[in-house]
């Protein structure tokens, strides 16, 4: 991780470059309902320079990117390109203006070669719509040479044969070829799926983009990477820009202070202390994957379940929901024994589970939002066996409104919704059921900060109404912010419990990995 890079030695410092070219966001504010995702952010993204965006999860980085790319419209403020305001109403507008984002998972057509993937939509043709292979070959060879990808991207490879890095290269080529070459290119955590070798190739490319005068925006959590690559580092916290640093003079400590020097995120709602009525009482629960689990959750309490992937958290949730067989142990819900091995009976007893994989385990993607919302409460909405359709519509509409699902109508198919809104439909299903205990497994995975904040609010509301909640999450800041108490699992067992004042990321991680360390130590000793 040397700070030397090919271009630094022979290129002037960023400050010396012309600064009128590039993009600028000015006074950008973005609200999602009551949640303020961005607050009056003004930031220059000069051409020929790499600006890194840093901040914790939920700080507003992806919201800012989405405003740049036309996915969101700002509540207030404007975007300027080369000093002129541009109106970005849609991603197509942004692309036309020359602003491109390279997503972590670019859309690649699997069964066509690289060349056709790059020029999708503007393939060279001969008469009768036949592909002009010679011209395609000429173009891709020229562009690969020009961009310096000739040795890393073979034009005849099929989309399905590409590595993660090569998929990003294809997306970058899309941005840099064709009629309106990109002026601003944003990378959203590009290295999270790349090998070290691929990272080097990507960085070389980004250096080249900078030399060509492109304004590069680089979002990442990786400090070393950013210090090595960026010219300027902008830090967001709770939707506000808290500082811009010169990458050559700042330090890691300085950046960390900027990012976290504050109370827990305001996205989390503080609630009064919980009641002492025990809703869920688990004693010695043992299944194929979890052993001897003891767990109590009170009315109005949010218990966080932390642990590494594979620790058995989701298996515990599925066992409680009646979907995995229980070997031994007892579970009572509101003082009554909870049936096992029968999800329907568990639901009727008052337990709801929003599972980890919402598309695979919860949603009926080709059915309407109304259907998806009412499916677990149909038995309360029927006369004889006929569904009372008016009552069903009213109920679905009520929860869709209350959870602010963004959709023109509850008659749309669920697959048309964004991830965050799909998750809200899953929550609507369980809220409509009015459970005593709600288990949420990774409730905010893969959804944007606006939707996350709304889901945090829903969780707080439910707790206030006396619902007991068990939240499983791999995002520690989220668990620390939400939970009254955190139970940590490791390798199928609970390894500890932390209350709000004891819980820190370090303390949780220590418990989550405690066993690993001891087993590997003993393994090494033997």
């Amino acid at each position, binding site marked *: 991780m040397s700070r030397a890079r090919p271009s630094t030695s022979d290129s002037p410092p960023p400050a010396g470059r012309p600064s009128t070219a590039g993009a600028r966001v000015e006074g950008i504010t973005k609200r999602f309902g009551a949640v303020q995702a961005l607050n009056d952010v003004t930031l220059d993204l000069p051409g020929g320079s790499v600006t890194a965006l840093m901040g914790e999860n939920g700080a507003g980085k992806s919201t800012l990117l989405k405003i740049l790319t036309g996915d969101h419209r700002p509540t207030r403020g404007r975007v300027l390109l080369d000093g002129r305001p541009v109106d970005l109403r849609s991603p197509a507008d942004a692309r036309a203006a020359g602003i491109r984002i390279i997503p972590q998972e670019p859309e690649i057509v699997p*069964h066509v070669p690289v060349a056709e993937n790059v020029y*999708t*939509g503007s393939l060279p043709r001969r008469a009768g719509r036949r592909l002009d292979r010679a011209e395609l070959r000429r173009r891709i060879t020229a562009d690969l040479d020009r961009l310096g990808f000739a040795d890393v991207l073979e034009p005849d490879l099929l989309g399905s044969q590409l590595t993660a890095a090569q998929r990003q290269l294809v997306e970058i080529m899309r941005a840099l070829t064709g009629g309106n070459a990109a002026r601003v290119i944003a990378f959203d955590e590009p290295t999270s799926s790349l090998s070290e070798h691929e990272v080097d190739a990507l960085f070389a490319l980004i250096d080249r983009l900078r030399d060509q005068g492109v304004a590069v925006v680089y979002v990442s959590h990786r400090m070393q990477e950013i210090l090595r690559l960026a010219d300027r580092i902008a830090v967001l916290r709770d939707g506000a820009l808290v500082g811009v640093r010169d990458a050559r003079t700042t330090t890691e400590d300085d950046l960390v202070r900027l990012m976290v020097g504050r109370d827990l995120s305001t996205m989390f709602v503080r609630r009064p202390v919980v009641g002492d009525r025990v809703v869920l009482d688990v004693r010695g629960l043992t299944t194929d994957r979890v052993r001897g689990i003891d767990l109590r959750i009170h009315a109005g309490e949010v218990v966080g379940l932390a642990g590494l992937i594979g620790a058995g958290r989701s298996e515990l949730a599925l066992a409680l929901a009646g979907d995995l067989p229980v070997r031994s142990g007892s579970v009572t819900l509101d003082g009554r024994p909870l049936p096992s091995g029968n999800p329907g009976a568990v*639901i009727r007893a008052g337990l709801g589970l929003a599972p980890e994989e919402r598309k*695979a385990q*919860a949603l009926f993607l080709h059915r*309407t939002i109304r259907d998806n919302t009412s499916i677990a409460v149909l038995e309360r909405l029927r006369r004889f066996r006929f569904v009372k359709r008016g009552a069903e519509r009213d109920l679905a509409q009520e929860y869709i409104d209350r959870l602010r699902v963004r959709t023109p109508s509850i008659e749309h198919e669920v697959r048309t919704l964004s991830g965050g809104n799909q998750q809200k439909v899953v929550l609507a299903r369980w809220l409509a059921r009015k459970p005593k205990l709600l288990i949420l497994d990774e409730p905010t995975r893969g959804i944007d900060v606006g939707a996350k904040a709304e889901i945090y609010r829903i969780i707080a509301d439910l707790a206030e109404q006396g619902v007991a909640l068990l939240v499983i999450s791999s995002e520690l800041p989220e668990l620390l912010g939400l939970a009254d108490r955190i139970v940590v699992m490791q390798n199928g067992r609970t390894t500890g419990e932390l209350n709000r004042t004891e819980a820190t990321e370090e303390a949780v991680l220590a418990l989550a990995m405690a066993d690993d360390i001891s087993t590997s130590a003993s393994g090494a000793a033997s």
Partner: protein
Amino acid sequence: MTTAATPPAVPNDGGRRRPAARIPVLGAVGGQNLGLIGALVAVLTVFGLLNDNYLSLTNMQVIAEAATITGLLAVVQTVVIICGGLDISVGSQAGVASVVSAMAFTSAGSNAFAGMAAAVAVGLLIGLLNGAIIVYGRVNPTIATLAGLAAYKGLAQLLSDGRAQGYVLNDAVFVFLGRGRIAGLPVMVWILIVVAVAVHVLLTRTDIGRNIYAVGGNDTAARLAGININKYLVAVYALVGAVAAVAGILLTARTGSGQPTSGSEGLELKAITASALGGCALRGGKGTIGGTLLAVALLGALDNGLTVQGINSFWQNVAQGTLLVVAVVVQQRRTGERAVGLPA
């Protein structure tokens, strides 16, 4: 090489999927039904021009009567497919029911109701057996009912010794079922209408129907939403057995005796073709009775047209096989299935 042959498909695909995503249920289902209506009108026009008698009221009734038994089986096939299953033993089930109805009728001293009750009871049992083999034996539905296709046909032949059984057209009830009319329409067609409307209402208006779509659409999600999916699958196969028995009874009433194989062989292909043409997604969760009935009408009109034109009946088989494949290919294209390896 295949990929190289179709480069323009890339932008086309992208453009086609977008609007479809914006238009919900009505767009997709309505589109399919409009296509079927178009095809039906085309078939009627072509054969109407070729043959003056084709569009006559008498011939329309012939088409309707001939399509009734297929229609009944297609309606329940639709339910099974929506539920994520398949039943290729429906024709054999109808054969067993036909034989049982005639034999029970005879041995109960020409009691039509005894004959029908016995047939329906046997149908229910066969359906329950299919469901139990699939759900509790963990046998893939295609394999389980393929076995049923052979076994139930053999059962019908064993029961009947391979011959037509009994004679029922001396009984007023069977004559009424096979030849009677109500308000100008054949009784058989009325029976199809009643069954189709009942199943349609079941699917669209009751929680049972919602749950059937849910089980076929995503069985894991259905289970976690509290639906007892085993119960639903077994019940759906039992429903198929019962309705296949009704089809078998009608077969007996129409031909005058219990038929182990003639008249029921090959009906599974027609029923599945009609469901697929009618818009059922073969992976489950999607399909409508309306679409299936339109497809039944289309198949019936085509069959009859080919017969009226004196075209070798072997061609009818070719036409039917072609239609089934075309229907499924069209569907897979719509869902954007990746052309890699075996299809889902």
